[in-house]
């Protein structure tokens, strides 16, 4: 996953890059070790919270393939998350499907419904896309509410057994590890997709649809692809959530979930691959933490949203990058007698668009 894999030629650049590569690889290694160790240094409750952070992080990362990289602000992703959840609920309680089959079914369903969303949204942009996806998701939530024969209506489907899972990963620390592995694999797949020519051309469509279209890309198809990929992985997150909770209800499809994931992405930094993941972790953690101390945690959340909009339009990662660059250029200005910042201090060393870096 490191940038070092794609070295451009040139000895000087190479050295810089490999140093960066080492840092990045090292960073990932440390992060991986820390993530694996989470259950051993927290109590069972925090492990549960951490599990939710991981799966919501995956949801946010999947969302961002449409939002940050596709440039399409969807407000309907709760539908895919919910579809993943209901797939578990229905398939396990009715037909006792094994987890892998459930997962596959959820991926197919999530992708299919998302493709329909994508096709319906072909003619709309910006705020209209936002509202159209919202209306579509609300219509699906309406189905979930009334098709009680299948969905259990407002009470949802309770008592979903986890017997299909191997007993060592059914709950607690084991389930955390399972989630970690699934999320890691999915995030890696998403990363590969985003760096692939396909993923890059979706970014191209975001930047200039007319130009992409003129150079022969079928931009409409690319937009549908972005939705499909996003829907598939959002459904995986929904599956993980429902296996964790043991129940699914219409709340899994509430439009506020769509709004939440949008905020995750913006707060973390939608231009960065891992930004939304970070956003999900931060907001989830904040909610748990603040609601422990006050019943008025919604107000605190509101203040955080306002602060995000005002000061974190590029997200936490965007801010961090800005801070690093500013410090660096200040430092270099100070240390070099000429006083001029070296060219490209803020520019990108790798030939990759800034956002496809972690």
């Amino acid at each position: 996953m490191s940038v070092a894999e794609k070295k451009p030629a040139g000895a000087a650049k190479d050295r810089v890059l490999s140093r960066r590569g080492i840092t990045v690889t090292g960073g990932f290694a440390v992060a991986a070790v820390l993530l694996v160790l989470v259950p051993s240094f927290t109590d069972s409750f925090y492990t549960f919270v951490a599990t939710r952070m991981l799966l919501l992080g995956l949801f946010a990362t999947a969302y961002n393939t449409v939002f940050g990289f596709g440039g399409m602000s969807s407000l309907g992703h709760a539908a895919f998350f919910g579809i993943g959840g209901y797939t578990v609920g229905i398939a396990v309680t009715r037909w006792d499907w094994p987890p892998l089959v459930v997962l596959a079914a959820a991926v197919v369903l999530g992708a299919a419904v998302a493709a329909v969303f994508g096709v319906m949204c072909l003619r709309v942009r910006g705020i209209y896309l936002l509202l159209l996806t919202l209306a579509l998701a609300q219509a699906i939530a309406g189905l979930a509410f009334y098709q009680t024969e299948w969905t259990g209506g407002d009470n949802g489907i309770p008592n979903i057994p986890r017997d299909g899972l191997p007993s060592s990963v059914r709950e607690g620390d084991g389930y955390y590890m399972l989630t970690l592995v699934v999320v890691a694999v999915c995030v890696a797949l998403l990363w590969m997709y985003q760096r692939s020519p396909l993923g890059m051309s979706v970014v191209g469509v975001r930047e200039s649809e007319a130009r992409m279209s003129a150079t022969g890309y079928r931009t409409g198809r690319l937009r549908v692809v972005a939705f499909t990929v996003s829907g598939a992985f959002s459904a995986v997150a929904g599956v993980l959530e429902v296996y964790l909770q043991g129940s699914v209800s219409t709340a899994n499809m509430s439009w506020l979930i769509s709004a939440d994931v949008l905020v995750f992405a913006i707060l973390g930094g939608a231009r960065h691959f891992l930004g939304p993941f970070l956003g999900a972790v931060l907001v989830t953690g904040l909610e748990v933490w603040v609601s422990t101390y006050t019943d008025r945690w919604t107000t605190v959340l509101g203040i955080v949203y306002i602060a995000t909009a005002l000061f974190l339009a590029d997200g936490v990662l965007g801010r961090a990058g800005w801070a690093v660059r500013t410090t660096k250029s200040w430092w270099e200005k100070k240390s070099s007698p000429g006083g001029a910042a070296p060219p490209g201090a803020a520019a990108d060393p790798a030939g990759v668009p800034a956002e496809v870096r972690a």
Partner: protein
Amino acid sequence: MLTWLTHSVNGLAYGSLLFLVASGLTITFGLMRTVNLAHGAFYLLGGYLAYDLTTNGTDYWLALLAGVLAAATGGMVVERAFLHRLAGSELPQIVLTLGVAYIIGDQILANYGGDPVAPPTPPGLEGPVTIGDWVFPKFRLVMIGVAIALAAVVGALLKYTPTGAKVRAAVDDEEIARAVGIRVPLVFLLVFGCGTGLAAFAGVWGGAFTSLAPDSGFEVLLLALIVVVVGGLGSIGGALLAAFLVGLVDQYGKVWFPEWALFTLYASVAALLAVRPRGLFGKAVFR
């Protein structure tokens, strides 16, 4: 026969309520292109304040005025302090106004509790009117008239007055408008205040119709958004027509296929938007 008359007129009355809510949104969102998810919260603010004042003995119309002014002021504060620096970037606007909506809703919950409340029906409009065999609530009938009148007034203000011309100029090309001496920030500030003030008016009247609770802000918001988008951003007449249509679709949907109530409304809106992205009367494309 009378039943159908009742259903139809009631659909129009409900549509009128939706238009009252949406009217403020057509100005701030449709015209100014500022996405305000806190619109429902200002609706609540006006309604709760009027409820509070009337239960403490204040005259109804005075309470209504106080609610409207308070929400207008609150809206202007939000615009001046936060929103104006996010002009043109809809996503931060969404996050910000969602935050404002959370705070207002949560503070209403903290101060008034979660039990539903209802501002009184405007004096003189209680009870039904009877025409022959036909019985219909007076308040609802008046609501239809108010909605049409409001649409006419707002439309005329924008179209025929110098202030309206300034607003349109400021929205269409901010820089040129500034260059010819229009104080654009002030115009935007006042327009936004009008929008939230209208939300509060809808809150006081709509609250008497449907009652208020701390989370009814979002229910109202979704329907109002639908009306504005279906009507076409920026079109007052379009919003009125859309409100009537949504009201009738909702009414007859409930009569004919009650089981699909939530689905029919949203699915038909989605279908319309997929085919006609700009709604019924939308002109300009959103950025």
